């Protein structure tokens, strides 16, 4: 896999229940970029290195492994590596055995009482920079 460059696009896949309100879940809202308190990395895919259909298949498989019940792919919140890596964040390529396009946005937040608040602040910053793309 080629090294990361600033201009390439990262995609945060959004999956939700079939009956969930599509209007809310098919938008790059901050919740898309909010991770658990003990998690410092946001899992994304490097979108410019494969066809969208292949990326959709990977995201669908991943979505079905999360939470309760069946989850459908709603789309991706897309943003550039440059934007993802702003404000003290970093981006690292982290290929997985079943997903060579995997990467992480690292928040680099220290353990502290303010950590959750800073996670939320970052989620808004990332959402403000992101745009939406529907699956093929």
């Amino acid at each position, binding site marked *: 896999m080629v090294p990361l460059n600033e201009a390439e696009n990262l995609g945060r896949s959004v999956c939700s229940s079939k009956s*969930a309100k599509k209007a809310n879940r098919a938008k790059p809202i901050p919740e898309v970029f909010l991770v*658990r308190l003990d998690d410092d990395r946001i899992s994304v895919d490097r979108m410019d290195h494969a066809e969208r259909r292949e990326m959709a298949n990977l995201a669908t498989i991943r979505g079905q492994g999360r939470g*309760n019940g069946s989850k459908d792919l709603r789309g991706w919140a897309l943003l550039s590596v440059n934007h993802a890596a*702003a404000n003290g964040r970093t981006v690292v390529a982290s290929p997985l055995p079943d997903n060579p396009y995997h990467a992480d946005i690292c928040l680099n937040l220290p353990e502290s009482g303010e950590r959750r608040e*800073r996670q939320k602040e970052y989620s808004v910053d990332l959402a403000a920079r992101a745009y939406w793309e529907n699956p093929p």
Partner: protein
Amino acid sequence: MIMQTFSREPDFHCSFNLKREARFAPAAVKSQNVGSGAFQTRVAELQTNSESLRDRTQQPMVMRWLKDALENVDQIDQEAEEEDYPPIGDVAKRNAKSVLFTACQSPLEPHVYASMDGEIGVYFKSPVVQAALLILLNNDGGAGVYWSVSGKSKRQHYDDASELPIDLLHALGGLPLSQFLE
């Protein structure tokens, strides 16, 4: 630049829709047989539709999104349950509705959603410039405000959601957001 984004949309939509209605109505009248009862009925229908359309396009932007946003709050329990999120209390719902009413002059339609921490999110994002504002209402009656403008992000927490800065919410209605988000 931000001021233009928050203030020009309603006028743009109103003038566009009124012009379109005015252009199409006469063409429809010409195609009818003058003097027939059907024609007069059709004219009356067109006049009614025209007045209805004019009323709708002259409504302030508040009428465009407030109803939907309030409905989203009413349905927030279902959304939280489907996403396996913690339940959301009545105080958060009341405060979310209060925020929506206060911000209802904003031309930007907010997204109302359940958060994984059991809060209600009211999120505004500019469609043109890189600016966004999130208000999270929690079950203790407090609120967090988070914003990102031109690459800079900040946050503020309020133990009591009624202490949310009114000026900030009014800024969403057309005043320059940058004045309040320094």
